[in-house]
């Protein structure tokens, strides 16, 4: 899977590249508008992560160019501006998702993952992790080919963990993923623990392995 990262801040560009590469993607980089246009014209990508504010141009124009090229690539816009207009415009132009800076790398990765699944396989694929099989089309989860029943949040958690397998995922990233930006309005992260406990219990009951490891009480690692 090839991902093009269009971002002018080298430090952020490299962080994204490092994280996504570790999750098995082949990453290419573009640091300004010209390079971005050149690369999308020259090569095929499965997914494009584009910053809006770029030297020599605008990330939204890269989206336009991709539409002219009839590219099948999934597009995620990242922007420092939490502007509804930009977001709507980006989605209108054909972007698949919009992420406001600062974001969790695990969240970006999960979104890249979801877009690729949707775009590439029209959602008709299974996600496999050892004995776990997930069928996103029907939202069913099998452990050792035995179906287990998960709540909506538990299902989302499992998908997020598998997308970010072997990585430490923080509680705030999990909370943000499950509840959106509003989670901080309501108090603590403690309730995440309940969901993780339930998910772990259901998998263990189906003779699955205990993949969810607590990292010093502040984060989790799957697998």
């Amino acid at each position, binding site marked *: 899977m090839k991902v093009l990262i269009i971002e002018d*801040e080298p*430090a*952020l560009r490299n*962080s*994204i590249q*490092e*994280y996504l590469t*570790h999750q098995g993607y082949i990453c290419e980089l573009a640091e300004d508008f010209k390079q971005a246009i050149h690369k999308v014209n020259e090569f095929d990508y499965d997914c494009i992560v584009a910053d809006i504010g770029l030297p020599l141009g605008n990330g939204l124009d890269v989206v336009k160019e991709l539409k002219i090229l009839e590219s099948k690539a999934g597009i995620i816009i990242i922007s*420092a*501006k*939490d502007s*509804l207009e930009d977001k709507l415009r980006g989605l209108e132009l054909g972007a698949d998702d919009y992420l*406001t*800076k*600062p*974001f*969790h*790398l*695990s969240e970006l990765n999960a979104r890249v993952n979801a877009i690729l699944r949707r775009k590439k396989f029209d959602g008709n694929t299974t996600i496999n992790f050892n004995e776990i099989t997930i069928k996103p089309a029907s939202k069913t989860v099998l452990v050792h080919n035995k179906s287990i029943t998960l709540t909506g*949040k538990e299902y989302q958690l499992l998908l997020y963990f598998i997308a970010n397998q072997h*990585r*430490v995922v*923080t509680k*705030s*990233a999990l909370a943000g993923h499950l*509840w*959106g*930006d*509003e989670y*901080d*309005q*309501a*108090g*603590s992260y*403690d*309730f995440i623990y*309940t*969901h993780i406990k339930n998910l772990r219990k259901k998998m263990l009951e189906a003779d699955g392995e205990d993949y969810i490891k607590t*990292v*010093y009480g*502040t*984060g989790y690692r799957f697998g």
Partner: protein
Amino acid sequence: MVKTILKPYMAPDTASVKFSLTVKKDTHSMKLLTKTMVYFLLIMLPVFTAGAFYLYTTFNKEIKHETDEELVNDKLQWMRYLDTATINNPVFAINTPEFNLQPTDKPVQTKHKLKGVSIFQEPEDTYAPFRQLTQVITVNNKNYQLTLRKSLIEKDDLIKNIIHVMLAAFGGLFLFVLLSNWLISKSIWKPFYASLDKIQRLQLNKLENTVFDRTATHEFNQLNAALNNMTTRIHQDYTNIKELTEDAAHEMQTPLAIAQSKLELLLQDDSLSETQLKGILTSYDELQRLSRLNHNLLLLAKIENQQYPVTDQPDLCTVLEKYLSLFEELIREKELQIHTDMIATAPWPLHPALTDILVSNLLGNAIKYNYPRGHIRIHISAQTFSISNTSELPQIPPDILFQRFKKQHNVYTNSNGLGLAIVKKIADSYQLSLQYSYENGWHTFSTGI
């Protein structure tokens, strides 16, 4: 660094502050027009009095002079007549107030004497003013004292009449001057009052529409030019600060994103010790807090700048249901009892993003500050929306209720003290009412269109 950037946000609600030039009800101050009229009166009064006095004395003198001339004239005629009169002439027996001839031993006078005297008038029973001429003359080698008098009563009436006419004229002139002064002042000062009215209704965020027009008066043109200059400068400064805060907040997002991503990558390093990892996680969480803070401050600035136009009428009930299900776990975990009393739909004229924020902030607070097994009462009607919750916390003091960064309780570390300030800003910017009340352990926030 952060502090200095954020500082402009902490300024009091600049946009909603009206320039209040109305002086506090001061009993010692009066309207400019009244004042000029009073001064005018005070100056004119002595002038008029002096004028009237001058006229009176002048007339008086003139009349005396005329009377005296007549008396002298009469004297000459009498002397001429007496020169030819015989000793038996009855004229020597006449004794009236007007004419009197008395034999005397006094020596002959070559010049007459004139003076004013008061003579008792029997019919009126009063003294009346007379001019009197006396001279000792010789008739047929005998000395006589000649006394001629003329009444001044008619002349006094004349003076009185003259004074009356003069006073009436002066009064008329006075009224005319007052009226014209009032009318002229009213039209002359009109541009001034127009400018004053404009300044009083000035709002910081609407300065660009304020223009002080040219007038026909030089001084007012100077004033209006200065005001135009001032409002333009204030508007520029205001826009600059607004842009600076917004830009600064935006610019902060990128370094925050970089720092956060680097820490997230560091977390993946297996070779780090537990202490190191914990340090990284703490930094990571604090960065989260910083970025949320930044996000909320940016939100406040955007609401203040009216960047959320009302284009839609989202249903408040739907929004509330959405957040009730989003916060479901929290409600369940605290075993809170939710009592709702809602009408079917309540479309509110508010930007959807702001409706979300309004509901999530108020509901979030009601959950956050509640105690386990507490209650939340929600009431939605077509025009009003109120949330009440039980809490162990005391009543919020009104002076810090909606202030930024005024946290009531430091126990809640993930509160940034901006939630209610944002709600308040939404209410202020979109003309919603917002009240807080406390009764028997129940905290209630209600808002209405």
